[in-house]
């Protein structure tokens, strides 16, 4: 199945059928209540990112979008499935083997303050990847650091500053500059603008857009904000309780969403208030059948039997639903 989801062009990242389980805490309640010992954070996920493509990964909190992003970086090892990066299978590489891979990928976090070492100046934060990752000549380091600051729109005197001396927007610029130090092929941005002040957010979103176009890198933009995803992404994948239920080119997804969950999600940012979405009780990710069926107004009898397979329904548009809209 995975193969026919993919067009002929080569992908930078190809996530195939990936499942990730986390072990639960063995509390007394869990043991007595016969709660499964593991929790499935991501189930049978397929996601491919082309070179120079920006993919938005949207979903609610707990949907597994952050876990999937980190799994692509191989901060987690999948329990099932495979991750192909630049044509190479990195699914089960050991840490020392991953070092080469990590030079080609970078992560930008939601909270830049906690992702930067408070005792390191901006210069140190930006120079470290060069020293460790690329063994750059020390004389060259200052030039590269200054170039990186210019690239993200920070003044050169920022390099002597410590993180606590910078504002939220400046910190996120530093985090982005650091992510780009080794010229990665892929940047994963995890809610990278969610904590920023409203009046600063558009500056950083525009910076992401400019740098992506200038450096021709691929982005995976993990966000719960549909407007942000729409603005930045070429394609959007929608996750619900660990499953990618629909992936489509951005315009198409907003114009003609097919999965009932995508429709529900998009109705929340519509001005129309008529499409009432009701969250109907809890979702049991371990129950058989479609993950969305307990919430779904279009559920059929067969939706109770198995989660629908993901099928390609148009160029770059895949869907996991037995009874989609239209």
């Amino acid at each position: 199945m995975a193969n026919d989801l993919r067009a002929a062009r080569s992908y930078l990242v190809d996530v195939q059928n990936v499942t990730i389980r986390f072990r639960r805490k063995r509390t007394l309640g869990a043991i007595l209540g016969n709660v499964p010992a593991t929790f499935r954070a991501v189930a049978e996920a397929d996601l491919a990112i082309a070179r120079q493509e920006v993919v938005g990964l949207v979903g609610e909190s707990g949907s597994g979008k952050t876990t999937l992003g980190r799994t692509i970086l191989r901060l987690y090892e999948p329990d099932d499935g495979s991750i192909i990066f630049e044509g190479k299978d990195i699914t089960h590489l050991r840490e020392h083997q991953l070092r080469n891979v990590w030079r080609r990928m970078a992560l930008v976090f939601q909270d830049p303050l906690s992702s930067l070492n408070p005792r390191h100046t901006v210069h140190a934060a930006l120079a470290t990847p060069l020293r460790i990752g690329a063994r750059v000549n020390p004389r060259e380091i200052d030039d590269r650091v200054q170039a990186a600051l210019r690239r993200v729109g920070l003044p050169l005197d920022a390099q002597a500053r410590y993180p606590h001396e910078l504002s939220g927007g400046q910190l996120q610029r530093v985090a982005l500059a650091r992510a780009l130090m080794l010229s990665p092929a892929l940047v994963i941005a995890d809610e990278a603008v969610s904590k920023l002040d409203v009046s600063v957010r558009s500056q950083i979103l525009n910076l992401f857009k400019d740098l992506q176009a200038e450096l021709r890198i691929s982005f995976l933009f993990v966000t719960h904000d549909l407007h942000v995803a729409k603005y930045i992404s070429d394609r959007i994948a929608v996750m619900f309780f660990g499953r990618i239920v629909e992936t489509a080119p951005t315009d198409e997804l907003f114009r003609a969403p097919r999965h009932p969950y995508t429709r529900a999600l998009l109705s929340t940012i519509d001005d129309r208030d008529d499409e009432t979405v009701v969250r109907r009780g809890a979702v049991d990710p371990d129950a058989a059948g479609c993950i969305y069926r307990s919430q779904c107004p279009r559920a059929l009898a067969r939706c109770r039997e198995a989660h629908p397979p993901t099928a390609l329904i148009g160029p770059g548009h895949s869907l996991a639903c037995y009874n989609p809209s239209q």
Partner: protein
Amino acid sequence: MSNQTLSIAGSAGPSANVLQVDGLDLFLDAKGRRLHVVRSVDLDLRASEVLGLIGESGSGKTLTGLSLLRLEPEHAEITARILRIDGANLLAATRAELRRLRGRKVAMIFQDPVGAFNPAKRIGWHARQVISLRSRRTHGRATGWRAAALELLAEMDIPDGQRVLASFPHQLSGGMLQRVLIALVLAGEPQVIIADEPTTNLDNIVEQQILRLFRKMKRNHGAAFIFITHDMTVAAAVSDRIAVMYAGEIVETGPTREVFESPRHPYTAGLIRTARALQAGVRRLPEIAGEPPGLATPRTGCAFARRCPERMSECDMGPIALARVGATGQVRCLLYRGG
């Protein structure tokens, strides 16, 4: 800084206002430095009116909200000419008087509902506390608390109220807990409810449900609301009037529709332009240059001047008063001198 009292649209004199704030200042003591965090804020609120208080982090919107319950932090100092809720003077009230006022005349809904509950007690216990308080006030008995609680929960679109009452807070989702909290706050029948970013931590779909509840609550209960948020679209969805705060000051107020359709302050205009562009799906977002000033940043005139596309030399000369615009709006900007 002008401290003229704002009279708000169609208010029939001060007696009609359930909340009166005139010239509220709040100072924070930070390592010997006195930071002026809320700057001569005036607010008036009539029964069943919803005011959207918009601002970014550090704008003073949350501290303004906390001041209205006299829950400001210990190292803060409040001064005001008037701070009244339903006739009660909050500036002169003793601790015991304040405790009686909270929950009955004025209540608060926080961003994180978990902190509002005792983790060791079931929801039913919390409901009973609130409802028996109300019964005592009306000299009734609390025997019917369960029925009353179920009714309130049902109104918040919680169908399985029995199960919820028997649950501990940690057993409920964030959205469910926020709904329970709103139900319990309503049970106290306060005149003024201050909701501080009540949907910010919630998922999109749950957020929409809660916002719908707020609209319903406004219709069914007489309470006045202050809805504190950083999100323009959320404010637009629930508010009758908007007040925009920047760096401790209210820079613009007016009826929601008017503010959204013709924002006057360059900061408000910038925020709305960005929110609109993001919704409309433009190729490139309009930006507001620079970043908000820090709390300790000294200022001589308009706090927004550094970032303002309309900056004039007079903007830095001295404090700028709120000026009347339109029928009931006000704006703190020299572009609107003389209305």
